[in-house]
């Protein structure tokens, strides 16, 4: 593959979650983490999974990534079943999970080096391109611990984008950051997503964050983890997290979220 093609990117994939159920059994209790979840995500769609803690949204992300296996059902990526993790579906975690024994550019190169068909010189160019895309070209040689939390997540984003995945899975990647840094990253993510269209599944418990980023927000409830409601977000991009329109959408979803929680509480 040539460098141009490499930077051009592969077309995004579609995802189909088909009737997935998952239980976590410990000696003390059994938790029904996911109950018959079915979900279609189309090519290049940005989907946010929102719900209270323990609703199974992160578990679903792990299953889509291939890091966990469902007890029932299956996940299809471009009509092929997901059985293992693979570089077409890369994951960004809440902690940056950058490797401290590598410097910044070394971290971005990690996934690229596992990709066949490229020369090392090309890999370095690709890595530099993505480092520039996240605005950290000056920090190529920096050590991981020298970066701030927001910078670490930017590098993690570059690392996930560099091997050119067709799906990007993000597990509360901004939850540990301060509000200002987060807002900056919202606009970065939108800008980058415009340039390199990926299918993105983004897990968060922050409703505003979800409305700011997603084409579609999927609301989960817990015990057992189920999809309760879905909301299309028709706001044009780029979106500003502080806009009134966005706040109205968020308020509507938050009401729905609270409604489900109260319903749940009355059942208990």
């Amino acid at each position: 593959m040539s460098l141009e093609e490499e930077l051009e990117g592969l077309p995004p994939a579609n995802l189909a979650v088909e009737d997935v159920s998952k239980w976590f059994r410990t000696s003390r209790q059994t938790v029904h983490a996911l109950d018959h979840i079915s979900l279609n995500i189309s090519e290049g769609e940005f989907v946010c999974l929102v719900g209270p803690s323990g609703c199974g949204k992160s578990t679903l992300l792990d299953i889509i990534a291939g890091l966990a296996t469902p007890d029932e059902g299956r996940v299809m990526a471009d009509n092929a079943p997901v059985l293992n993790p693979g570089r077409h579906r890369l994951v960004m975690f809440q902690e940056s999970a950058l490797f401290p024994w590598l410097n910044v550019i070394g971290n971005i190169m990690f996934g690229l080096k596992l990709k066949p068909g490229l020369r090392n010189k090309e890999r370095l160019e690709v890595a530099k391109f993505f480092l520039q895309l996240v605005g950290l070209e000056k920090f190529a040689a920096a050590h991981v611990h020298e970066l701030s939390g927001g910078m670490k997540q930017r590098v993690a984003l570059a690392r996930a984008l560099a091997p050119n995945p067709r799906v990007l899975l993000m597990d509360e990647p901004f939850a540990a950051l301060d509000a200002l840094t987060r807002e900056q990253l919202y606009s970065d993510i939108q800008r980058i997503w415009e340039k390199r269209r990926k299918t993105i599944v983004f897990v968060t418990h922050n409703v505003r964050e979800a409305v700011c980023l997603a084409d579609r927000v999927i609301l989960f409830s817990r015990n057992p983890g189920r999809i309760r409601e879905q909301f299309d977000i028709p706001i044009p991009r780029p979106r500003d997290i502080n806009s009134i329109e966005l706040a109205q959408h968020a308020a509507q979803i938050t009401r729905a979220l609270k409604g489900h929680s109260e319903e749940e509480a009355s059942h208990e």
Partner: protein
Amino acid sequence: MRRALLATLFFLVLVAAWHFIVKAGVWSSVLLPSPQSVGEYLLGAFRDGTLLQATSVTVRRLLVGYLIGIAIGLPLGLLTSASRFVEDTIGVMALGLQTLPSVCWIPLALLWFGQTESAMLFVVIMGTVWSVVIATDTGVRNIPPIFARAARTMGSRGLHKWTKVILPASLPFLVSGMKQGWAFAWRSLMAAEIYVTILTGFGLGHLLHYGRELHAMDQVIGVMLVIITIGLLTDKILFSPVERFLHNRWGTGLR
């Protein structure tokens, strides 16, 4: 510069204190020789070559035994961390044998190998291997699982996972394990040299032992100083740079 000066001053004061205690004549000079006579012994032994000869014999034994110990211990430690079966068998054995003071291997080594280099080597290896096994095992088990998850999603598995993720991720533990292994190897060798008389090489332990037999206290203390210096130098030359590198990369350490 200031730090070096202060450190030098500290050791000068120490030697001066030693000098005045000897001067005061509380203990017989047979039991506590003056710093001067120890210095004279060291100078003499250095000039006639005994000291260098003994040091080179000891250091060679130490290095060979230590390297073999690591070559055996590191893979074993990786195995115990990777397989439950190996953990329950070799791992338990390593834990048990590590608690056995390495001097306890000497009678067995003497009966098996006789008064030979092999006996020396055996004792050093037995002193090193088990602590390296346990340190490696601990190191791998302490890797944050998030690293393994991230590496897996990027397609790292098998040999790549072990060499590019697990080994570097556990490096801080491996280095402290190797340091510990070194300390054990050093202790084992000195014990072996003091207890085992062999003709193929006269090490520092032997010098120390004969110092005692001849009631040559200046030799005993002189050789002890040499042994301390070698330990200090290895730490500063072999391990300190690696540890500095790790602190620098990981961002650990307070200074």
